[in-house]
């Protein structure tokens, strides 16, 4: 996979102010003002409102060019004044943006002066440095929590309470967490508490200043708590509220992962039991108490929920073990979710975060190692600082069957058909983002059930087709119809089948052979072109490549490029509907060997599923010497090479440039390199016993007189069939002005060359995604067109 270090394509992260605003929403009667250009506030309000389905009110200091040049103090002060006048908040959060940080605003200084000038100021102002370029929403969130604790005068008088610090968990999960902690008899201060402000009820009178959330008076008591429990795995000491309270006030700090997996809910319960709140009622007989002494056990209801969870885990373990999940999102979310997967025997094949997170790889590898013990030979993709392009590539390479994360994964899901379980911020295309449950014995199970069901649906809708494709060979019953037991045979130990293939090939059998090579018009043999090779390595003068390559006649046109997996699926499906589908060809839409990985992988997958089908490939020959042996090893028997000139001088008029091994060759140099490689490749193909066809595009005034010479040259390479095709002038191509060769001229040349080489006269100018007998393309159902790679 190419690592695009400079271009982020489809980001798997947002910016710091987003996290900062979200955190401030967990504080009671708090309003936030973004110091910067007003677009930041507008964009973030829009994204949060869409996820939470709640009004999101964020003010802006609305800096314009003047503010950017002369400083934004005036605007920020005006903004604070207006915010206070209209909303009278108890807390004001000021989060800075890229603009404020780039011009070096001294926000704290401005606030100090502001306080001084307004001695009757009631609102507590908390400032956060949250430049968008300095981190993601994950960092913005924790920086804000830290700022809240640090910038609130703390009362360290012991109050017997417990601080619970979380990352961005859903309002519904927050409500669960509050209940869970309370059930342990613990009086807690939650920072933040998103439960109400981001998931409120229908109220006729809209509460302009959100009163849910943690009162700032409670934040001021955090230093007097008897402990802090921080539910965060990838913490940064400098931005950890728990670390601050521990360092400055000696509040003991416990850390735990987000309680999604059974073991992590257990761990949290263990901490809470250890902190010993009110002791619970009568012990149950079947409750397993493995945490602490017998007197400190989790409450009854908690125990019952745990047992239900365990019961469900046993019930669905068979399905879960088939899950190959790609998990993406904030580091803590990915960590907690992977812990859930592995304890259920599911394989996290991709674990990725958009944040820069140095110990992500190591910690995730540790988590996944648990399940690698019983999944053979897995090598999961784990990475931080990822974009969705990398995640998509990894998910395909790792054959993921479920995606888990935010709704931003929907584009991959649409493209690849891998189902997406939406369970993290943001969820923009579905409702219910605010009600997502992933925490606790029940919440973790709700997530697990969704994953399990996604896997079940996947199996349910595809397994018949897949099994049939893999194990059922119609020819078995053809050969021995009486023996029903022979209908199913495992392809791994399939019958020796090279014989019929050879026979068909040599005899040019119109039914079993290759529709191009058998030379019979109206042949019943069918072929399918799998459009997997997008790129091209040369520029022909008659070809305009925009997205599709119209390289070589009108081949090159396709309605979409497929991934190798999707191509396999298309082949397997096509085999069911098209009679005598003997040939799988790769003909672009670019050059088959300009994307050798996609081409070879496709052929490998098809060969795995079908030992008998003939392989054919069409190329300009530039990369042929490098790959011809690999192609032969996969069983390629039919090769088409385009030869439009055997003289570099003429070639130079046809090829604008040739990209070879990182160099762009133009003019005769390019044509010569192309020519040399073509013939080297053809020679090797002959030695390997391949059936070779040569295509020649007839370019009036350029190579028409040269055609007989081409024929003689290619004949020597072992070519068995020639296909002279008139150029199709394509608007905007360099040679479009030549116009289309007159058909009589084509016929004349074919007749002239017939003496040297048999001529193909039934060419149908196939598209790169054609399927069916020549000239009778079968429209594949649209479902088969899924999985486009571009």
């Amino acid at each position, binding site marked *: 996979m*190419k690592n*695009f270090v*400079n*271009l*982020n*394509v*489809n*980001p798997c*992260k*947002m*910016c710091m*102010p*987003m996290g900062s605003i979200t955190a401030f929403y967990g504080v009671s009667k708090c309003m936030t003002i973004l110091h*910067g*250009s*007003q*677009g*930041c506030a*507008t*964009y*973030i309000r*829009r994204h949060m*409102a*869409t996820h939470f389905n*709640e*009004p*999101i*009110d*964020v*003010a*802006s200091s*609305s*800096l*314009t*060019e*003047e503010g*950017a040049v002369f400083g934004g103090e005036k605007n*920020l002060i*005006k*903004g604070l*004044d*207006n*915010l206070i*006048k*209209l909303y009278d908040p108890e807390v004001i959060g000021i989060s800075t*943006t*890229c*603009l404020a940080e*780039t011009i070096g605003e001294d926000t704290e200084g401005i606030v100090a002066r502001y306080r001084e000038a307004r001695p009757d100021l009631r609102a507590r102002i908390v400032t956060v440095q949250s*430049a*968008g*370029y300095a981190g993601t929403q994950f960092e913005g969130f924790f920086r804000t929590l830290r700022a809240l604790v640090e910038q609130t005068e703390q009362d360290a008088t012991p109050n017997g309470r417990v601080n619970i610090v979380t990352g961005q968990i859903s309002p519904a999960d927050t409500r669960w967490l509050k209940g869970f902690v309370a059930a342990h008899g613990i009086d807690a201060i939650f920072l933040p508490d998103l439960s109400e402000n981001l998931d409120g009820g*229908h*109220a*006729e009178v*809209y509460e*302009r200043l959100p009163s849910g959330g943690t009162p700032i008076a409670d934040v001021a008591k955090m230093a007097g708590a008897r402990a802090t429990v921080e539910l965060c795995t990838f913490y940064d000491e400098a931005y950890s509220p728990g670390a601050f309270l521990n360092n400055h006030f000696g509040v003991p700090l416990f850390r735990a992962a987000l309680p999604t997996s059974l073991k992590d809910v257990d761990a949290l319960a263990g901490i809470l039991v250890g902190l010993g709140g009110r002791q619970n009622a009568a012990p149950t007989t079947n409750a397993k108490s493995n945490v602490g002494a017998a007197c400190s056990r989790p409450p009854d209801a908690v125990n019952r929920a745990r047992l239900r969870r365990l019961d469900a885990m046993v019930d669905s373990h068979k399905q879960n073990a088939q899950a190959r999940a790609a998990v993406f999102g904030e580091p803590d979310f990915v960590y907690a979710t992977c812990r859930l997967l592995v304890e259920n025997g599911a394989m996290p094949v991709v674990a990725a975060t958009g944040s820069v997170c140095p110990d992500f790889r190591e910690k995730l590898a540790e988590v996944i190692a648990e399940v690698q013990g019983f999944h053979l030979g897995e090598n999961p993709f784990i990475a931080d600082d990822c974009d969705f392009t990398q995640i998509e590539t990894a998910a395909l390479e790792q054959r993921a069957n479920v995606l888990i994360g935010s709704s931003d994964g929907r584009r991959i899901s649409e493209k690849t058909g891998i189902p997406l379980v939406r369970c993290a911020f943001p969820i*923009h295309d579905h409702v219910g983002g605010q009600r997502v449950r992933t925490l606790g014995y029940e919440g973790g199970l709700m997530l697990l059930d969704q994953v399990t069901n996604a896997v079940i649906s996947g199996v349910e809708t595809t397994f018949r087709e897949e099994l049939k494709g893999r194990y059922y060979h119609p020819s078995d019953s053809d050969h021995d119809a009486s023996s029903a037991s022979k209908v199913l045979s495992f392809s791994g130990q399939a019958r020796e089948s090279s014989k019929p293939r050879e026979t068909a090939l040599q005899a040019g059998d119109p039914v079993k052979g290759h529709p191009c090579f058998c030379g019979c018009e109206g042949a019943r043999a069918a072929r399918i072109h799998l459009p997997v090779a997008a790129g091209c390595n040369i520029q022909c003068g008659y070809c305009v490549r*925009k997205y599709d390559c119209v390289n070589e006649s009108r081949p090159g046109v396709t309605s979409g490029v497929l991934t190798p997996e999707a191509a396999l699926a298309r082949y397997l499906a096509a085999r069911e509907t098209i009679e005598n589908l003997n040939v799988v060809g790769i003909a672009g839409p670019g050059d088959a060997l300009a994307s050798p990985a996609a081409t070879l992988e496709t052929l490998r997958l098809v060969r795995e599923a079908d030992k008998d089908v003939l392989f054919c490939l069409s190329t300009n020959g530039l990369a042929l010497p490098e790959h011809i042996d690999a192609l032969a090893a996969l069983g390629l028997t039919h090769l088409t090479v385009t030869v439009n000139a055997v003289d570099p001088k003429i070639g130079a008029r046809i090829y604008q440039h040739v990209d070879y091994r990182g160099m762009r060759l133009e003019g005769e140099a390019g044509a010569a390199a192309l020519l040399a490689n073509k013939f080297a490749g053809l020679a090797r193909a002959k030695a390997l016993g391949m059936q070779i066809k040569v295509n020649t595009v007839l370019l009036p005034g350029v190579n028409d007189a040269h055609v007989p010479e081409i024929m003689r040259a290619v004949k020597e390479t072992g070519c068995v069939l020639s296909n002279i095709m008139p150029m199709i002038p394509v608007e905007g191509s360099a040679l479009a002005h030549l116009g289309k060769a007159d058909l009589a001229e084509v016929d004349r040349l074919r007749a002239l060359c017939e003496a040297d080489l048999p001529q193909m006269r039934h060419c149908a100018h196939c598209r790169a995604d054609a399927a069916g007998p020549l000239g009778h393309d079968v429209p594949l159902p649209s479902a088969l067109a899924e999985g486009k790679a*571009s």
Partner: protein
Amino acid sequence: MDAKDKVLDKYSAKVYKNRKAHILEVGQAPEEQEIAANTRSIPGIMTNRGCCYAGCKGVVIGPLKDTLTIVHGPIGCSYYAWGTRRNKARADEGSFTQYCFSTDLQETDIVFGGEKKLRQAIKEGLELFKPRALMICSTCPVGLIGDDIHAVASETEAEYGIPCIAFSCEGYKGVSQSAGHHIANNGIMRKVIGTGDKIPRVKHSVNLLGEYNIGGDGWETERLLKRVGYDVIAVLTGDGSYEDLTKADRAELNLVQCHRSINYIAEMMKTKFGTDWVKVNFIGIDASIQSLRDVAEYFGDEELKKRTEEVIEDELAEIAEERDYYREKLTGKTAALYVGGSRSHHYQYLLKDFGVKTVLAGHEFAHRDDYEGRRVIPDIKEDADSKNIESITVEPDKERYEDKYTEAEREKLRKVIPLEDYKGIIPDMEAGGVVVDDLNHYETEAFLAELKPDIFLSGVKDKYILQKSGAVSRQLHSYDYSGPYAGFRGAINFARDIAMGIYAPAWKYVTPPWKTEPVLQAAFVNDTPEPETADAADAPKESEVTNA
């Protein structure tokens, strides 16, 4: 005290003075019918406006589907503009609108400059995606650290032989998205329109300007135009492409849907290529009919006029039954509108088709001419913010300039069709209607309480406040995943969506029964507290009856 005064009452003296100028009531003395617009938003008051970048990348450039647009800046700006507007695009020829490209600047890039990263990103983008053209949009920090994106664009053109246009649309420029529209218009005019082959102008051909194909509106409009017999050369820019834009000068007439975001191009094309423009509106049944007739009138072709009437008749017949049904359902309701530049005007026609009266219309980023009509343009004073946005002048193109009509003929046409004219929103509103520029969060709530519209059409930022207040909301930026709303069929989609909102069963449950009706309550004989169970609710007959 009228609604306007009540709303303003809460403000401090300074803010009062400022905001008063942005609000007017239609039908008062003529001297009060002037509105302040396109000035800075007040800090701290939640404006719904976006930034310059949003107007350039998000609105105008973003929909070009064959173009790879790299956002040069920190990740957020690019992320937040990713799929944010529902400008649909057919993907059959490939489309980059599903993608989001960013240089993802980091702290070190801000310190040491980001040009190198941008160059590299361009190289990577071109290698992988092979677009028709490349655009670079800059964001706040890029403008401040002084990366020369225009130089990078020129280098890119020279090195890769691909058109590359840079837009200095930093978020802090101007006072709203409007600045970004202007910057995008300038770039497109300068470098794209009129660079294609100079084919002869096609008879009865048009461009559709300021149609962003939200929810498929552009497709429905195109369908109508093509049905009559027009050739649509380019759409700016919904489901549009760079390729089409290069040929836009080959059209005979520009149809301007969204005046605010695209009038610069309409004006400049008039000067440079002689292309006339008319203001159209395909939102609303009667409006669509009028626009179709105006366009036919412009071409003056009798057959075309006849064909226009046939199409109108046929389209009307198709929707007749539904139109009557929804009209009956909606007549007498009132609506408030708060959208960007032109929708607050256009949708009044559509609402009127169904008997709904508009009581408030707000614009996010309009200029005075959008409210009062183009006649006020000479009187608009430039301020420091508008001066910062480059205004380019173009000259007639010697090769490509063509006049369809003489000035005398145009003068005649002006009397019957809105040729090069837009009368603005105010003349179309009934007396007593309120017009607000840059309506903010507080005012939305306050006007809602004062005017109590049944329907409030705006965006996602206000949607949930409105719904909590019991108003039917519909997002006119995204159509709440519905649409199209344009043309005849679109009008029915819209009416159905509004009726569905008004008659949603959920509203019936807003007030719980124990607040309105005598409710049967169960009293338990013993003291054991029991949870609320079905038994308690089902056994009222034996219980005492109390008024809750």
